[in-house]
């Protein structure tokens, strides 16, 4: 079979048993939310080489979309109020720079680090929203992608802070002044593990949010297959959840960026 229609055909030949159909629907849902070596759309079906995967293509498409958005459609309008698409992008850019980057890292570091957080925000937002469009899949619903993003945060939390404050001050931040040494023995390892845990939490939060949202949408549509016309109201609910997902796409991009800024800011200015 060249496309995922075989699941539909399996479904048609399956016994007229609700449990059997539910099993195939389950397979269909998992097939759609996990990464695979194929890219199926109603228009074409691609079998990708082994070094390539569906979500990797989505990452590339997201990058190209962003480059086109900011490179071709963005027009810098000197001296007058921006209009149209430029206005929409500029509002988001200013929001990320002022309310996330500068708010958590201070005026000087915030301006310097703004490109990182802008990249985080727009890249995650594009990946999330692409998952809601037909033809595309959610790259951020893959734990490898979100781990990659979180490891960038980790890199800046450790090496960026070392570069900004010097290695001595970086390690001193783990031992706050005025704490007796018996407590420090317990406190320091916890602080160091916390550094990793924060990034793992970032990974899991984005990944599980996107994955869980899509599973809910697919399961609601799958109810229609399992129970037939009795489950027609589920279609309305699937639509409602899909709209909720649009909100969640923005929220998770914001949350990832703001938490990254918070964690990095904590390491840059430990005296806080």
């Amino acid at each position: 079979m060249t496309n995922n229609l075989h699941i539909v055909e399996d479904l048609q030949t399956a016994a007229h048993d609700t449990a059997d159909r539910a099993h195939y629907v389950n397979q269909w849902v998992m097939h759609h939310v996990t990464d695979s070596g194929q890219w199926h759309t109603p228009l074409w079906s691609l079998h990708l080489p082994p070094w390539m995967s569906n979500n990797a293509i989505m990452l590339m498409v997201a990058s190209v979309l962003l480059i086109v958005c900011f490179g071709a459609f963005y027009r810098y309008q000197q001296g007058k109020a921006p209009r149209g698409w430029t206005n929409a992008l500029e509002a988001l850019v200013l929001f990320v720079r002022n309310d996330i980057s500068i708010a958590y890292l201070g005026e000087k570091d915030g301006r310097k680090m703004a490109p990182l957080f802008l990249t985080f925000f727009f890249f995650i937002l594009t990946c999330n929203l692409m998952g809601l469009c037909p033809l595309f899949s959610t790259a951020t619903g893959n734990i490898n992608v979100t781990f990659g993003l979180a490891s960038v945060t980790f890199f800046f939390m450790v090496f960026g802070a070392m570069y900004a404050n010097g290695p001595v001050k970086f390690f001193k931040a783990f031992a706050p002044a005025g704490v007796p040494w018996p407590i420090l023995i317990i406190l320091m390892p916890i602080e160091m593990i916390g550094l990793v845990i924060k990034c793992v939490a970032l990974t899991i939060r984005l990944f599980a949010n996107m994955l869980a949202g899509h599973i809910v949408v697919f399961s609601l549509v799958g109810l229609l297959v399992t129970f037939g016309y009795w489950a027609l109201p589920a279609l309305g609910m699937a639509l409602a959840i899909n709209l909720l997902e649009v909100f969640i796409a923005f929220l998770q991009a914001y949350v990832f960026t703001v938490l990254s800024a918070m964690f990095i800011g904590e390491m840059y200015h430990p005296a806080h």
Partner: protein
Amino acid sequence: MNLSVLGAGLVVFGAAFGIGWIGSSAMKAMSRQPEAAPKIQTAMLIACALIEGVALFGAVICFLAN
């Protein structure tokens, strides 16, 4: 019957309690000081995200156990 389903339910219980508490506190704070509403909203969303992260840890473990 897989017990991990029960675990997912328990996780939802805890997360709902936490997020509900944050929401109600934020409502109270905002009604007392409407001028501080944007700041409170930001702090609320961040706290919600932290709780959600823990809840999703549980959800992921349920997925893995299934």
